[in-house]
């Protein structure tokens, strides 16, 4: 009992002394940024996933790519490769690497050399070559690259010399460079790989990451915290903040509370936008993201193997109401999977109308005049493309009730949800897609192609050879207007077949305290904290302290 008393006394005493030692605590928080993230990453290697949460936590923080996007027009710019060259037939692409790129130095690895061609060969062969020592580590599944069929495209990754790399392609592909600039095509350290093989700890390559990015991983506690330190030898000027902390807070209200109580500096996907706008010390920002939220069907399961049923449902859903209620009007109505800001969007595409009577008659033709009951899987988390899937599911439920369809809403914890979708246990589902790069192909291939049904990123399991043929042709032509025609065909086919009903293209929101400067959000791909800085709070804080002291003094003088 005495001990407890003692602890209590010490607690109280330390609380009193807290006021005196404000300065050093400020110096710690001044150089650190806490980001309230919406979920935990599945892994620390973006090659292995397509989930936005994982990409946000890893890609731009820990790694770099050969090339990257830059500026408003999303031009491809050099990153780890200082320049590149494409042959006239588009089949050989040569990259010239920077010579001053250092890998992270951590407790578990210290690099003896700078980045060179071996690292690039190592990183890409891990994906392409099933014989690669690391290919099967962490499941051997590279969904993004499998969706774009990279292994069929790339015949060889050749090391010309220590700082020159050549990709030999089987055929010209317009989206190849765009794909190399995505968040997935990161460069790992071959030297670290060798060390892990020696230590027989191969799985560590994805759990204890080594990259060239502006931050290095310090600590990860599953489901609660990711701690990054600044990479001091970064090949660009080092990041301004020393410590970056991801506070994993899946609950929407939890993130809001932490933001309002200043326990995090930046919050992902904030709710209560009005409340945040009212506060003078907080900023709400939005970026028009390349994404689509949709209502998809598992076309392998009845009644959704019948095209007429899918069409009927598309007429029965009032998208305008969904947009108002779920997105609060902060999104655009989706007419097809491709956002209408994309150059490949076909403006002549017929608008989907809301027509319950037509829906009902289509159901009758399909032989479901009595209606049926179905499961609708709604995602449990807030994503940029769908801020509240459960509400959306309830609205769809009431829409479909009008045409005699009984909807049961199902939801699981996020990772379980994705896993079960991959296994095809669902009948219909609410999900979405955020683009990895601005090329229109990113909306067509990874979401709906046949190869994507095998990797599980096409959760409708819709596989149409005509469609695959069209999008393949679109990739092989260099003629922009020809490409546009192909994509128009693909969109038309989707409108007839309706493996999914596109609902909205939404904005991605983020809230931050005003002292944080610099861009975090990007219109596509993951977030980046490299540009972030924190303006000093020290001056203001001291003033507040002085005022307090004056207040304390006054009564004494009276």
């Amino acid at each position: 009992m005495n001990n407890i008393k003692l602890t209590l006394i010490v607690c109280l005493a330390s609380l009193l002394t807290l006021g005196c030692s404000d300065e050093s605590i400020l110096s710690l928080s001044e150089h650190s940024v806490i980001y309230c993230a919406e979920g935990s990453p599945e892994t620390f290697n973006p090659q292995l996933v397509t989930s936005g949460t994982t990409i946000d936590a890893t890609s731009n923080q820990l790694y770099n790519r050969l090339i990257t996007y830059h500026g408003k027009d999303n031009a491809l710019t050099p990153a780890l490769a200082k320049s590149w060259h494409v042959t006239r037939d588009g089949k050989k692409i040569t990259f010239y690497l920077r010579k001053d790129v250092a890998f992270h130095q951590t407790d578990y690895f210290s690099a003896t050399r700078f980045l060179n061609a071996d690292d690039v060969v190592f990183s890409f062969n891990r994906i392409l070559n099933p014989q690669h020592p690391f290919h099967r580590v962490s499941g051997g599944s590279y969904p993004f690259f499998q969706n774009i069929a990279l292994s069929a495209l790339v015949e060889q990754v050749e090391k010309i010399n220590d700082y020159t790399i050549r990709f030999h392609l089987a055929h010209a592909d317009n989206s190849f460079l765009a794909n190399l600039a995505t968040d997935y095509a990161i460069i790992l350290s071959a030297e670290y790989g060798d060390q892990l093989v020696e230590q027989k700890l191969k799985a560590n390559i994805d759990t204890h990451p080594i990259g060239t990015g502006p931050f290095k991983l310090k600590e990860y506690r599953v489901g609660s915290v990711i701690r990054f330190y600044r990479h001091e030898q970064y090949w660009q000027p080092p990041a301004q903040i020393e410590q970056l902390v991801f506070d994993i807070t899946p609950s929407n209200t939890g993130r809001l509370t932490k933001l309002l109580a200043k326990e995090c500096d930046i919050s992902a996907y904030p709710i209560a936008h009005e409340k945040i706008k009212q506060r003078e010390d907080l900023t709400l920002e939005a970026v028009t993201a390349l994404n689509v939220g949709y209502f998809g069907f598992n076309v392998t399961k009845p009644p959704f193997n019948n095209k007429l049923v899918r069409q009927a449902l598309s007429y029965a859903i009032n998208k305008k109401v969904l947009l108002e209620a779920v997105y609060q009007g902060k999104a655009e109505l989706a007419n097809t999977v491709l956002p209408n800001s994309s150059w490949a969007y076909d403006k002549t595409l017929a608008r989907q109308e809301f027509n319950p009577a037509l829906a009902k008659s289509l159901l009758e033709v399909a032989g479901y005049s009595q209606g049926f009951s179905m499961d609708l899987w709604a995602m449990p988390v807030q994503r940029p493309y769908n801020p509240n899937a459960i509400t959306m599911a309830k609205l769809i439920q009431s829409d479909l009730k009008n045409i005699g369809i009984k909807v049961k809403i199902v939801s699981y914890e996020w990772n379980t949800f994705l896993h079960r979708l991959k296994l095809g246990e669902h009948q219909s589902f609410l999900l979405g897609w955020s683009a990895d790069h601005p090329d229109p192909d990113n909306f067509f291939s990874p979401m709906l192609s046949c190869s994507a049904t095998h990797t599980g990123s096409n959760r409708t399991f819709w596989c149409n050879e005509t469609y695959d043929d069209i999008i393949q042709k679109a990739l092989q032509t260099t003629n922009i207007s020809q490409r546009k025609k192909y994509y128009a065909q693909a969109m038309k086919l989707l409108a007839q077949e309706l493996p999914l009903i596109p609902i909205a293209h939404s904005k991605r929101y983020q809230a931050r305290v005003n002292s944080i400067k610099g861009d975090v959000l990007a219109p596509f791909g993951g977030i980046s904290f490299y540009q972030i800085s924190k303006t000093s709070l020290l001056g203001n804080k001291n003033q507040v302290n002085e005022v307090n002291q004056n207040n304390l003094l006054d009564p004494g003088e009276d």
Partner: protein
Amino acid sequence: MLVFTFRRLNLFLFTMLVLTLLSFSLSFLFPGDAIINVSGAVNATPTQLLSIRAAYQSDENLFWQYIAYLQHIANGELGISMASQSQISTEILNLLPATIELSLVALVIAMFVGIPLGFIAAIKHNKPADNIILSVSMLGYSIPVFWLGLLAILTFSINFGWLPSAGQISLLFEIELITGIQFIDILLSDSPYKWQAFGDATAHIILPACVIAVAPATIFIRLARTSMIEVLGTSYIRAARSKGLTFQQIIFRHAIRNALIKIIRHVGLQFANLVTIAMVTEVIFSWPGIGRWLIESIYQRDYTAIQSGLLVLSCFIFVVHILTDFIYAALNPLARGKKHGS
């Protein structure tokens, strides 16, 4: 005392047996394969599954299965979590101390606030002070803890910005997990920001601990009040009074000690109550304790975690009960003579 100890140990063993029996039967009652429920090996390959089956003797009859289950528990093998696929025993060892820490601080607050208030109420029996204390305690007792927690966050974290709303400590501080009890870990760490971390951790614990303390504190008020009134009515107090002792002497020398003895017994009982309240509070304040973990496991249908978590938690509460019984027996010789454990 020896007989008393023996009796308690006996009770402990049998209760544990019943508890394990209950948690063993849970693996059959939960949906799915019993062996996967008990081991948590949802991703096991067929060969791995075979060896797990052999380890849990699932081909034998129920009795041997139960014995095998007991062996696993005795070795500290509680299976792996279905959701995170990590060892449940290590997860519990990491999380339980945080709950203990929070509950202990709450208990101390409840005792230091509740007991003196109860004594004051008893001394001012049937006077306005008594009535006020009683009605406030009634109010405190009837407020649901989740509502109180949210209200506290809204007021003290969001509106005033005085105290943090979530977690054990600001994430900026890196405190290595040694004992799991944050305050001790901070003192053991060699961080240059040690004392700031300590202050920060204190600021973090105040809100949740106070919220948890409200309900037990009201109970302590009432317990202290009744036991003090009882003591004040006894003949030895009357004797002391007639001997001419001052009021203070009577209260501090005689009444408080005798009244406290009666309360100590209930501290153990209240601790169980407190842990239950703490579980809900942990969710509200995102406290990384076992309660939040257990509630998340229920949400994720992580049967292995639910099963083992319940076992460990009930075992822990039972141990606390027995410990307070011992303290009570040590303080009050009369209790040791009782023939039946109550």
